[in-house]
């Protein structure tokens, strides 16, 4: 039990710091799933004496979540699902709950279910984010009033308070989810039959296709690009790496040359 409590506190701390990066501060992109999930896996794995396993789980989870939410951005009024918290929680729940299992397939199923659960938690995280923004709106009104009365210190105070709200929200949310969520997840996984369980491993292998679809939608603008994309996929499927790398380099040179002559 003390180990579980320590792990919950550690995850809450990581969640708080990572969530600050997603919008409130820095924006170094530590909050992107491809970074946040391996980071969580590394810290958690280190705590349980399995750093490499934690890091690998983090990479797997981070890859899938990065792909699923690749187009989600906090632009203007848009509040996207909280991919940072989803990444942290997915790794934390999967690792702690799967830690007790002996077999590979049981652990993999536990990871996949934690991943699916974390996607839903990411949506809940969005609602919490909107709540914090509403709180900040109240602070903004208060700060404006203070500045009008020439109390200029209020700006630094109000601004810092906003950052603290974000951290506290993520800290409490992560702590409660890990503290209360591990046992139900372990119970649910153990109730699945082996037949059902292996199906989830198939799902895990197919999920990247969703993210690839989103990325393709973002990048392909016309039919010509679509044809080129399909052609490139066929090349990458049929030919070994050395040949397609050579073809790619040649095409790039031709494209650059053609583009420059057309511009002239």
């Amino acid at each position: 039990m003390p180990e579980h409590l320590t792990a919950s506190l550690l995850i809450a701390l990581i969640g708080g710091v990572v969530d600050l990066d997603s919008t409130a501060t820095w924006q170094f992109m530590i909050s992107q799933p491809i970074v946040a999930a391996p980071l969580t896996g590394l810290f958690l794995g280190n705590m349980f004496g399995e750093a490499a396993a934690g890091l690998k789980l983090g990479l797997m989870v981070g890859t899938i979540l990065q792909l699923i939410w690749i187009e989600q951005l906090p632009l203007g009024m848009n509040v996207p699902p909280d991919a940072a918290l989803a990444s942290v929680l997915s790794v934390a729940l999967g690792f702690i709950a799967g830690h007790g299992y002996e077999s590979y397939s049981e652990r993999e199923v536990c990871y996949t279910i934690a991943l699916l659960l974390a996607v839903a938690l990411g949506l809940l995280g969005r609602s919490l984010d909107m709540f914090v923004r509403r709180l900040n709106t109240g602070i903004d009104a208060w700060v404006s009033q203070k500045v009008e009365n020439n109390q200029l210190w209020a700006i630094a105070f109000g601004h810092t308070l906003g950052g603290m709200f974000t951290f506290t929200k993520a800290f409490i949310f992560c702590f409660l989810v890990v503290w209360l969520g591990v046992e139900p997840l372990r119970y649910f996984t153990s109730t699945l039959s082996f037949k059902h369980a292996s199906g989830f491993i198939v799902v895990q292998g197919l999920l990247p296709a969703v993210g690839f679809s989103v990325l393709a939608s973002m990048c392909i603008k016309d039919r010509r690009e679509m044809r080129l994309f399909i052609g490139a996929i066929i090349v990458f499927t049929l030919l070994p790496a050395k040949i397609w790398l050579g073809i790619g380099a040649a095409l790039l040179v031709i494209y650059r040359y053609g583009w420059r002559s057309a511009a002239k």
Partner: protein
Amino acid sequence: MRNLPRFMLAKIAFRSFFLQSSWNYRGMMNMGFLYAISPALDRLHAPGPAREAAYLRHLEYFNTNPYFASIVMGVTLALEERLSRGEITEDIIHDTKEGLMTACAAIGDGLFWDSWRPFVAAAALAFAFGNYLLTPLIFLALYNLPHLYFRFFGIFWGYREGTHIIRSLRQFQFPQIRQSLRYGTLVLLAYLVPNHVNLHTPFLLTNLPIEYFYFGEKVVQGIGALVLVSLGTVAYRARIDVLLISFLLMVCALVLYHWGILI
């Protein structure tokens, strides 16, 4: 004549990392903007009505790309300095700031969110699928090079150039950079799709001679992945939510697995 020392501009660039700490629905990044430039305002305006007016002026609505905000801060401070010398009026600061934040939002969002981040993510994913454990560091190092460049140099640049900054921004040829990044992302994606969607069927094992099995498996995986991604793209362009697409894929995969078509 410039009054603000380099150290102060660096301090403001550092404070700009906290631009969105108090993001709110009324003024968006207004408090963050004012918090960042407040040391310079304190230096430029004497205590009293002038300083209070400067603070109130920058508490109004502000929203732009966070990485390009430093440029807006630099230009705003150059104008504040001229205001303190009585060369311009408050309206000029208001209008310039508003125009510049819109332009920087358009350029910055298009460059960073729409092009650079997907490209770096696709490059990192290529490493991640290979279980390369340093992937997060590669992602962070690559992503933050232009980020930190604009954060730190943006403020010096904006302060030096003032309202001429838009002309200088053109030298970057952002549309061409964005197009190149888009093509780069597409090539990486074309590599990722057939290699990292794990689609296996038992029919090949039973029906194909063992010497052709590896090639057959690769072709089936490539075609299957292409079909899946095409369907996903059609669904996404039809504005079906990503999570719903994921859920449908999960259900289909479980059904196909149950029928023995996928393993």
